[in-house]
């Protein structure tokens, strides 16, 4: 808003949380820079919401420290942490008008009436909900309710915005619309934002960095491009990207060649993180759009088409090489039908190799 932008970094140091004997977060370290948009992505039960609640101060940590804006807030109340939060179920106060929903917290904190009014008016203008200010939440649509909830967070003028799956309850079109709006809001305010979701599209479109979580741990922390193109392990590779990455199981032979019962692939262009040993079993991951049709190419691998799904802008061919399944994204005009044999080639640079433990090679 008008005053100097309020931006805080967030830093988690060795945070652990357990509910009784059930551990929800293992010693977790995370640095979120000022003005960064960080997305916590993972399946339900991975601990991402718990982590967000811990940052908000709604869940107590068992050990470790939480720093916000250079201050140790581990034992502070949510209201003193300089955060604002938006919830999945909107969590609006149902008997209060939109205006009251946005102003109530400020009024209780002792802020002067004109200041409260000014902030509410400004936030409402940013979110285009000015004409809704005197309505009750029950008279609003889901998208409008979530705008109001964002407005309530906005007036707090916090350094960090926390979003707990804010778009999950909306239908697909509204979700996309509000997603863009949140991204625009981030660009405008420059505030630090931490956004929890299980939707990889939201993560890829919104994030400066994504933290992919599973089983109480961060599996990979990186830019959307990194996470998509160089997944740290097989879980991340499968979870991010739609349709999912296909895997071919085989092993490494002499001269860095990937071999299965039906194909041989020269890996000399692949950037190994560690030198592979001969004979080790590996999984080769291939994204659907990293496969190209190579008619007339001698080295092309033949794949039998089982099913074709036109997607409008392009089409997906579900094929098999021997027994292994491989999904291929082709341009919408490609003449292809079930039963066809497609000559395919892979760009070695874009392949992903995982060892038997599922870690990237």
């Amino acid at each position, binding site marked *: 808003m008008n005053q100097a932008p309020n931006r805080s970094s967030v830093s988690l140091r060795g945070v652990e949380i357990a509910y009784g004997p059930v551990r929800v977060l293992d010693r977790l370290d995370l640095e979120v820079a000022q003005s960064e948009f960080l997305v916590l992505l993972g399946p339900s039960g991975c601990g991402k919401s718990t982590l967000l609640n811990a940052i908000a101060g709604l869940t107590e940590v068992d050990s470790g420290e939480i720093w916000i804006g250079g201050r140790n807030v581990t034992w502070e109340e*949510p*209201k003193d942490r300089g955060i604002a939060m938006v*919830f999945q179920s909107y*969590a609006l*106060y*149902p008997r209060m008008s939109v205006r009251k929903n946005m102003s109530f*917290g400020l009024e209780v904190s002792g802020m002067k009436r004109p200041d409260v009014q000014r902030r509410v008016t400004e936030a409402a203008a940013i979110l285009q909900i000015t004409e809704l200010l005197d309505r009750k939440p029950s008279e609003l649509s889901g998208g409008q309710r979530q705008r109001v*909830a964002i407005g*309530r967070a906005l007036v707090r003028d916090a350094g960090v915005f926390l979003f707990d799956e804010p778009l999950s309850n909306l239908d697909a079109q509204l979700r996309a619309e509000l997603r863009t709006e949140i991204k625009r809001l981030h660009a405008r305010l420059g505030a630090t934002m931490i956004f929890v979701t299980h939707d990889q599209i939201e993560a890829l479109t919104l994030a400066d960095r994504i933290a992919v979580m599973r089983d109480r741990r961060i599996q990979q922390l990186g830019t959307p491009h990194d996470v998509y193109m160089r997944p740290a392990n097989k879980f991340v590779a499968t979870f991010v990207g739609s349709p999912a990455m296909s895997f071919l199981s085989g092993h490494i032979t002499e001269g860095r060649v990937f071999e299965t019962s039906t194909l041989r692939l020269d890996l000399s262009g692949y950037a190994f993180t560690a030198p592979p040993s001969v004979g080790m079993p590996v999984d080769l991951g291939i994204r659907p759009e990293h496969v190209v049709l190579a008619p007339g190419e001698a080295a092309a691998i033949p794949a039998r088409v089982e099913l074709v799904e036109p997607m409008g802008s392009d089409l997906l061919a579900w094929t098999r090489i021997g027994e292994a399944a491989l999904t291929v994204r082709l341009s919408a005009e490609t003449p292809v039908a079930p039963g066809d044999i497609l000559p395919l080639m892979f760009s070695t640079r874009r392949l992903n190799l995982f060892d038997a433990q599922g870690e990237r090679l």
Partner: protein
Amino acid sequence: MVAAAKRLRIGSRLPAQIALAPALLIALVLYCGTTSWTVWISLTSSRMLPNSVFVGLRQYDVLANNDRWLASIANIATFGALFMTAALTIGFLLAAMIDQKVRAESLLRSVFLYPFSMSFIVTGLAWRWMLDPTLGFEKLLHDIGFADAHFDWIVRPDRVIYTLVIASVWHAAGLVMAIMLAGLRGVDREIWNAARVDGLPTWRIFVFIIIPMMRGSFATACVLLATSVVKLYDLSVAMTNGGPGIASEVPAKFVMDYLFERGNLALATAAATTMLITVVVVVAPWYHWQGRKARMAGIA
């Protein structure tokens, strides 16, 4: 085809109609029938036995000048106001307390709900003994050394109605707690979290956010408590038998006494009719308002 479908529909409805007929008959004959008979008797000069000598509103005139009836009305008003306020407040506080993830939740729930499983007669007797100055609390206080302690409300005409309130609140608070607890559990956890992030103190969260969300629970509890106020009879009989003097008389007891002990059917039915009209006058606007709200919700 159409005819067959129609026959089928009637055919499928018939058993349901037959099954409902006895209930409908009972409702008509017992409720409407006896109610109209009561109203009719209140307009006659019946004494021990019903007769058909129409005397107009004379019994209501008598009733309006009957000290005992007037005392009953005043008592039930005091009792109703205090009992409903106290039962709702204490019930809600118990529920709010139990909702704080306390350890022995199910045990506490049972303990608080337990009094409700006892009849008013038992409740009345138990409290009669506990409040008796020569047996109960006062004697206990004397025995442990507080020689000046006084708690003789049950034998004081100006205080005895409060003892009825104490006993019935003890009886009903657990039920209110159960209703309120269900209401509290229905409040989304995220509302609490949002309020905490907003920095609202707990009492403000309750007063301005949670309680307004629990209108349904409060309405349910109010209706149940209000019916027990109107019906209040056995507690008064068991605890004080309307005394000392007529200090704890209540309308239902007035009706019963005049029906069976004093043999004045007409006056008793006039009192009963007055009670009925009062309840209708109170309930009808509320009923109308609920109906309108339901219709509006239907449109929206």
